């Protein structure tokens, strides 16, 4: 989901139910509260219960008016507020565990202070780790155990100390020769809160990482069920038991200690202009430019612009900052050829695409500017000339090229995101879970010489074509010889346009890949090596969204809508192809928790022949460190 450049509206002054503070904790901070409100509002008028939105008539058949009318009657705002305030309190307590680990586990008082007197938990025996794989990376899992079972396995014994439990949990992080870690990091995320019957329970995802000076590093990723003792008054909740839902540990050993090493400074260090530009975030530049877009949606393209066999990089930048062409030299470092190539464009540009538009053997460049696409023709020696502007695709996000009509030249697909052309109010996505009032995506047909014609409508792609599309990617998913197109949409369902000899039809529903969520990115690959393409779509994972949408008091009489909102907060999706329909293996495959995800790619980073997944994520880190 993206939330930039909105037209200012009057602040919400409606009578939101006040958050109660039954646990005695301070009320959640405004942003947290607003996030909860936002999720409540996903379907319906939310905080302005009595003010009905005038819904634009949309293609979907949901009775929007009915939904908006129903929400406030079946959502228990007091319950949700209590959940959120309890989460704050519990997170505050878990921070003590973080502190205990990061200070070398030498202050048991920290854990004692959050542990209930009658704390009990089953022992966790690292010996039970089932090594799943033993080459390069080493990975182990504890077999999943039923969370509902009140009985602890007898053979493992019990512990009555939180310190013991945590020492057991962290034991796989130990370096074999007993060194102390050079760096440790801990992160908790509470994703479920159950307060309706005692004891209070939270489900928390915890990640712990330890890195040692000798090149050994390890991480533990676990989902824990934590039972809390809740006392009356202002007392903080205390942990009374911990059960493991999921537990996984992974080791890596090499000279560098991790697989990837950041070598950017040496890569660009000879170009002080580049260092200056990239050493600051877009916020820094935004404070110097009145053009800025704090959402920071600016991408990059890799391609060989001078045909020397080495890849080069083109980086897109906000309005007022020049885009950069980084041409690889023989020594692997880059030379800044932005100005000499003619590509130091100051316009706001979101993305770019290298492709040979006229089949003359060199890479031309397409750049998505705010009001048009810019088509640059390569004239050799990394000199490019602006050849034309394509006006149909405005406010474009991701670009892709493919020969959809198999006539031997590359055609272009541009995602139009929002019907927003720089002036006037930003269009409001409606309804949030199934918006179809965004910008128009465009398919341009190439005449073979680099002249492009908008054929979107005539090939059938104007169906579901204004859904705030972020990204598209081509693949012949049905292996019939022509390329099909998957489009990832913000605020709702995605499309899989099946190509039948140049005519498209949206088969996402039939193929069960609508993935109705906040789609940001799409990539294809054959992850299980069965010869058929599989699909990875990134979305936004939201802890708060998970906490709120799983409450019984959230849309209690609309279970179908409730489960839809739960899905929207779930995270990324991995769909296996090859059967009659795609199969959603996001949860069992453990690829769903990509946080607030953006570009996500299949990458075989250990060259074992199996494509791994890398997720770029994080939405807005601004001045006020309110990490939701």
């Amino acid at each position, binding site marked *: 989901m993206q939330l930039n450049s909105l037209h*200012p509206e009057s*602040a919400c002054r409606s009578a939101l139910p006040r958050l109660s503070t039954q646990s005695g904790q301070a009320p959640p901070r405004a*942003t947290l509260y607003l996030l909860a409100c936002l999720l409540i509002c996903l379907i*319906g008028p939310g905080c302005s219960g009595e003010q009905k939105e005038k819904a634009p008539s949309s293609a979907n058949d949901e009775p929007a008016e009915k939904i908006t009318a129903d929400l406030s009657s079946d959502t228990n705002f007091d319950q949700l507020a209590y959940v959120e305030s309890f989460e704050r309190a519990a997170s505050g307590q878990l921070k003590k565990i973080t502190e205990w680990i990061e200070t070398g586990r030498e202050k048991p008082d920290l854990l004692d202070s959050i542990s209930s007197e009658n704390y009990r938990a089953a022992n966790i025996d690292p010996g039970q780790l089932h090594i799943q794989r033993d*080459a390069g990376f080493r990975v182990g899992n504890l077999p999943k155990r039923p969370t509902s079972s009140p009985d602890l396995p007898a053979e493992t014994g019990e512990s009555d100390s939180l310190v013991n439990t945590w020492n057991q949990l962290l034991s796989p992080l130990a370096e074999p020769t007993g060194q102390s870690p050079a760096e440790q990091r801990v*992160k908790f995320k509470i994703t479920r809160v159950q307060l309706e019957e005692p004891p209070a329970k939270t489900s928390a995802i915890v990640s712990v990482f330890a890195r040692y000076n000798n090149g050994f590093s390890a991480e533990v990723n676990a989902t824990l069920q934590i039972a809390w003792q809740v006392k009356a008054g202002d007392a903080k909740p205390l942990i009374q038991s911990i059960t493991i839902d999921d537990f*996984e540990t*992974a080791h*890596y050993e090499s000279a*560098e200690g991790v*697989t*990837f090493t*950041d070598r950017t400074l040496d890569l*660009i260090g000879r170009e002080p202009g580049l260092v200056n*530009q*990239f*050493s*600051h*975030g877009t916020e820094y530049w*935004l*404070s110097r*430019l*009145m053009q800025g877009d704090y959402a*920071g949606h*600016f*991408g990059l393209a*890799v391609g060989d612009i001078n045909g020397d066999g080495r890849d080069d990089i083109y980086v897109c930048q906000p309005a007022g900052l*020049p885009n950069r062409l980084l041409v690889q030299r023989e020594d*692997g470092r880059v030379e800044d050829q*932005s100005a000499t190539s003619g590509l130091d464009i100051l316009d706001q540009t979101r993305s770019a695409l*290298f*492709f040979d538009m006229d089949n*003359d053997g060199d890479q031309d460049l397409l750049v998505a*500017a705010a009001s048009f696409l810019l088509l640059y023709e390569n004239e050799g020696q990394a000199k490019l000339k602006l050849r034309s502007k394509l006006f149909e695709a405005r406010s474009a996000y*991701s670009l*892709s090229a493919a020969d959809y009509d198999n006539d031997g*030249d590359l055609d272009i697909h541009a995602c139009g995101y929002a019907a927003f052309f720089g002036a006037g109010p930003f269009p409001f996505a409606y309804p949030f879970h199934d918006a179809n009032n965004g910008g128009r995506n465009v398919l341009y047909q190439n005449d073979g010489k680099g002249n492009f014609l908008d054929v979107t409508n005539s090939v059938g792609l104007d169906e579901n074509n204004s859904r705030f599309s972020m*990204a598209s990617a*081509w693949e*012949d998913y049905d292996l019939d010889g022509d390329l099909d197109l998957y489009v990832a949409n913000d605020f709702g369902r995605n499309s899989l346009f099946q190509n039948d000899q140049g005519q498209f039809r949206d088969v996402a529903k039939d193929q069960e890949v609508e993935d109705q969520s906040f789609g940001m990115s799409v*990539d294809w690959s*054959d*992850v299980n090596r069965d010869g058929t393409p599989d699909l990875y779509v990134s979305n936004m994972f939201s802890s708060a969204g998970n906490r709120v949408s799983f409450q019984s008091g959230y849309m209690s009489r609309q279970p179908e809508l409730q489960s839809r909102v739960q899905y929207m907060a779930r995270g990324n999706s991995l769909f296996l192809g090859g059967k009659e329909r795609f199969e959603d293996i996001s949860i069992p495959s453990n690829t769903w928790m990509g*946080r607030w995800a953006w*570009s996500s790619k299949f990458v*075989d*980073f250990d*060259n*074992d*022949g199996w494509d*791994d997944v*890398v*997720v770029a*994520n*994080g939405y807005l*880190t*601004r001045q006020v460190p*309110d*990490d*939701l």
Partner: protein
Amino acid sequence: MRQSYSQFIDQIKQGNSFSGKERNCAFLNLGNSKFANVSSISGLDFIDDARGLAVTDWDLDGDVDLIFANRTAPQLRFLQNDYPGGHGFVSFQLVGKSSNRDGVGARVTVTLPDKTSMTKTLRAGSGFLSQSSKRLSFGLGATGQDKIAVRVDWPSGQVQNFPAVEPGHHYRITEEADPLEIVDRQKELATALAPGPIPNAGNPGTVSAVCYPRMRLPVTPVTLENQSPKPLTFRSRYTLVNLWASWCNPCLSELKEFANQYEELKKLDLQIIALSTDGADGKSTTQADAARAATKLALPFPWGTVDRSWLDKLTLLRGELFGLKQPFPMPTSILVDEKGDMRAFYLGVVNVAELKRDMQKLDRQDEAIRNQLTSLSGHWISVPSTIDYLKFASVFKTHGYSEDAAQYDRLAGGQKARQYYNQALQSMEAGQMQMAESQLREAIKLDDSFAPAHLVLGNLLMQLASRSSAGGQKQALDMALREYQKTRELDPENFDALVGLGNVMIQQRQTDQAVEPLEAALVVKPDAWQVRVLLGRLLINNKELGKGVDQRDQAMQSSSENGEVAAAYGSALMQLGRYPQALKVLRTAVDKKPDDPRMARLLADSLLANGDFKSARMRYASALANNRRDVDSMLRLAWIMAVSPDPSLQDPAAALRYSQQAVSAGSNGTAARQTLAAALAAGGQFPRAMQQQAAAMQLIPRQSSQFQAANRRLDLYREGKSYQQSKTDPVPFFPQ
């Protein structure tokens, strides 16, 4: 819902994070449709607000590297893959023949010795805002050096099979061609890249920002030194509106520095107005504290106090302009021009030297300012934008500032015209001329004093005129003339309008009147050689030869490298009879453009005029060899063969042949007839020569020097003599 959403946006505008500091994720494929979370040990879990991600084997070492584009610093991360696992690899670069040249959409299947396969499709664009390498890289696991089988399914439907491919190489596969080519990196990298991210440049000191597009300052009621509150007005070229407070020590030192440099700043026509926020900023100090501090500092420039609402307006302003709805830090200064438009912001202590530099920079053309808003320059594709005053009117109205809302509403009126104008520019670019015309007329309707709209409409009408029928053309030209005249009225030194005026008048055949605007244009831009050339032609046409040549002389001086200018100048000199000078200039012209036949002809003419019959004959002959129908060269060649004093060049028979050929090709002007006469005379056929010469002279005005020269030749023929041209002959060198 809309309200809660916008409240949420407002929170972000106020600087709140939202799902910030999230760490990137990496999931390791375990080969059984399960993945392990290796985000940290992979080294990829940076805390950036990451957006783009591209994959490439950058260093061609067999494993893929990653490049992230981030919203936060550093904006770029190049992550080199150091995986030591000893797994095999192979990669393919595809070259399509029947398929698209990039091979996008091709599926490559690699089959390992254990008969398991893996397939990858080549894509252009995937992920989010990202494109990865077009080289398809395959990890092969622990397969050793055993050969693998490779199959390519091209988009064209063709299939290529390579049953035994050695792993460990980078290959190029060309559709319809065998075999595979190895394209491994020629040399190992001499030095490996050193580890290290781009350092975070950290928190800067003073933030200075150009206010572009410029925007009117909100109404600023100030209480200046105990007078009653009234809105600020701006009389100097620039005014620095400085926000300070008695509790803010950096503010006080800054004021001291301003006071020290005040005399010098005044010379630059810079006024300073120091506005204290004491009593309005929520701190415990009062206006009395401000007065005490100001007295102590003995400020030589005006100072005053502002109220809470003005600070509130500035916060709104900052939210809208810079996406951060927070009060400006102290001190903050705003540079305002005499119109009251904000031109620069300084968040923090102003560096006076920088301020001076900025004032100079701001005096430049808008385009130059726009091309370098930060320390980093580049170029814009889109047309300049203006501040969206309507938006500000709405924002200020919402917050109850009706006076500001009214000010911005008023400014938006003129701006709407500019919006139409910008739309018209885009329409023109998209070839929608009628749309552009109506948009420009809308713009003019809204703001008749908006010169650029008149100018562009003039240009548009000129374009339309060139495409219309005679009647339509006349009407379009008349309208264009009015638009240019209007532009000139509004902006007397508008070069484009002046040239446009000249152009219309030339099209309307009012060549006398066209001289004036073109001369005026040259006053504005003396270097505009095209205008000089045009004006030169005009003056020559208008029989003001001397002036015309003079223009071309000046054009030549300002653009000596330009062949066109030289040719135009040379031909003018020829018309003026300054042959030696013309020869020199035309030689330069031919040097610049050796392949231009028109210039070659001009040069030959000037050779002839200078009496260099031999070189001239050679040039005409070669021109004729290039173009058998070149009547002019034919005639001049005949002329040389008939009248040259050099016996080796004389050839009366050929002269006769060429001149007759020219005449039968339809050339029956005086030049052709006189040439024929000279050829006849050279061959001794005097009666016929006299007959032709007399006929030719019918076509020349008596009294002209041409007529006299022709008459002298007629006398010679009468006397039974042929004519031989000498260098000392009075002009012209060739019958005209």
